[in-house]
């Protein structure tokens, strides 16, 4: 069984996944352009940028970028790579800067990416260096949704709110529960682990099935705090156009099963009542959302007050950036309790996080085997089952909690994008040497500009 380029599925019924998508380096390179450069990618939370010059460094696919607040309050996102030798111009996770100076030869750029200053410019270049042409490449579109900052290299995909579509109905429960918004706890956790990024993204999109196996030991350890409260037997998965998905249970008092103090339990209960007034009962007191993914790589855990991004680091590794997102209305004691709850479960040292890391490591590892990789994986859970009619107000295709409908939505969207080559792939495959005489500086400069345009197009 060989992969048809662009297709994740190995069968027409779309129930089998060709596992080379988790390990093939060629597909990985294509994915960076066809999937990541064509999607809205989550970058940061607005509360990380209090004043002009505040910055945060992250990735868009494999491209390192700097997100910074400008004097006019807008956000600018530029490639974190000097135009002279490619060194990172900013080596910090976050901070405040007036300018970014490359440590290699000292080229300096404004936070908007403009080339400001080149050491010994007159002696080195005379008047031959066109500053306007050699700034840091800027991401053409940056938009926000209720405190979240996103960027995309694609100038043609719909605006962010339209791209997220009905996912915002569910996202609002985390970002806007009571009309007062959220703030990100100080410090974004970052860690690397083995495993293809899609294994994290698809699991958060639609996999409740793994919990009682993967996380069993964590659940047993936490059982003394649970007061016998367990999730209902029946729940839901919701698959959405665009590859987004989420899952959870009908409303139940989960916050009484977490070992919180009475003060924290009361606050969560009261907040849900306020949320029901603000957003209606169906998605607040009527449901407990657990997990979800906005395509391609932003994932959320509503009940742990956290969101994260899976950045690809080659086909077999990823870097996770993880935020604790807390309601602004929460008093300090509640914020601290929610932050600790997130950290215990899903920070780098979180028990549940380490449970998952083990699975993704060995799932990916096995994809390299010659015979192993020839066998497709089973993604057929819930196929042929009727829709779940218990949640009539939910937008999207609703199935029961044990269903892989969301994984199939995710890989359908991935396959659509992978079927169409990115224009920059052509530019990258033709080397400058094959197209221009090496000795003529103006010709190769013109070529580089064309190639840069293609990346941005």
């Amino acid at each position, binding site marked *: 069984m060989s992969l048809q380029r662009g297709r994740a599925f190995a069968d027409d019924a779309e129930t089998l996944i060709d596992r080379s998508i988790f390990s093939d380096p060629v597909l990985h390179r294509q994915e960076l352009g066809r999937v990541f450069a064509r999607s809205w990618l989550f970058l940061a939370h607005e509360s990380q940028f209090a004043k002009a010059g505040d910055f945060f460094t992250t990735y868009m696919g494999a491209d390192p970028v700097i997100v910074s607040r400008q004097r006019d309050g807008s956000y600018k996102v530029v490639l974190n790579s000097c135009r002279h030798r490619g060194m990172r111009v900013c080596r910090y996770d976050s901070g405040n*800067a*007036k*300018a970014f*100076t490359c440590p290699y030869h*000292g080229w*300096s750029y404004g936070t908007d990416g403009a080339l*400001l*200053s080149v*050491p010994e410019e007159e002696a080195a270049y005379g008047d031959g260096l066109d500053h306007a042409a050699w700034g840091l490449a800027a991401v053409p579109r940056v938009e926000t949704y209720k405190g979240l900052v996103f960027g995309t290299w694609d100038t043609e995909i719909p605006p962010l709110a339209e791209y997220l579509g009905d996912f915002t109905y569910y996202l609002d429960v985390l970002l806007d529960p009571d009309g007062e918004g959220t703030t990100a706890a100080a410090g974004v956790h970052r860690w690397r682990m083995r495993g293809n990024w899609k294994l994290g993204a698809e699991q958060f999109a639609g996999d409740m099935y793994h919990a009682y196996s993967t996380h069993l030991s964590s659940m047993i350890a936490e059982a003394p705090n649970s007061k016998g409260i367990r999730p209902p037997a029946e729940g839901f998965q919701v698959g959405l156009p665009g590859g987004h998905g989420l899952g959870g249970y009908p409303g139940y008092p989960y916050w009484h099963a977490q070992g919180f103090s009475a003060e924290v339990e009361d606050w969560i209960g009261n907040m849900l009542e306020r949320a029901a007034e603000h957003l209606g009962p169906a998605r607040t007191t009527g449901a407990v959302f657990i997990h979800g993914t906005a395509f391609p790589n932003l994932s959320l855990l509503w009940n742990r007050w956290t969101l994260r991004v899976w950045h690809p680091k080659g086909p077999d590794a990823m870097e996770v950036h993880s935020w604790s997102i807390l309601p602004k209305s929460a008093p300090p004691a509640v914020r601290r309790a929610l932050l600790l709850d997130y950290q215990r479960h899903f920070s780098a040292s979180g028990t549940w996080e380490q449970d998952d890391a083990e699975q993704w490591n060995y799932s990916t590892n096995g994809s390299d085997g010659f015979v192993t990789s020839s066998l497709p994986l089973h993604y057929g859970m819930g196929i042929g089952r009727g829709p779940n009619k218990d949640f009539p107000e939910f937008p999207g295709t609703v199935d029961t909690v044990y269903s892989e409908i969301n994984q199939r939505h995710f890989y359908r969207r991935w396959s659509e994008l992978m079927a169409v080559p990115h224009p920059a792939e052509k530019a990258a495959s033709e080397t400058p040497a094959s197209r221009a005489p090496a000795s003529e500086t103006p010709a190769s400069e013109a070529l580089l500009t064309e190639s840069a345009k293609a990346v941005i197009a």
Partner: protein
Amino acid sequence: MPWIRACAGGELEEGDAVVVPSQPPVAVFHSDGEFYATADTCTHGKFSLADGFVEEAVVECALHSAKFCLRTGKALTLPATEPLRTFPVRVEDGAVYVEIDDAMMKEPVS
């Protein structure tokens, strides 16, 4: 030579600087309770020193970390070697004034 108003003394917080839009521009710094005025443009990388970091009457350029003494204008570290010109400053009725050359007043100064 003309004295021109740079700012109200209270406007400029400790460690901050303001640029007087003369030709060339002059920066007025507030450090350790004193006000200092020097040429605003770094003698190494051509960048506004008012955007630099100020501590104990020394400014460090935000681009390449050249340091200058705000009292004397002396270049204290590489990569700068040329000193900054300094200008007299006085505080009168709560406002900070700096004395510049006639020739520097190429444009109306507010």
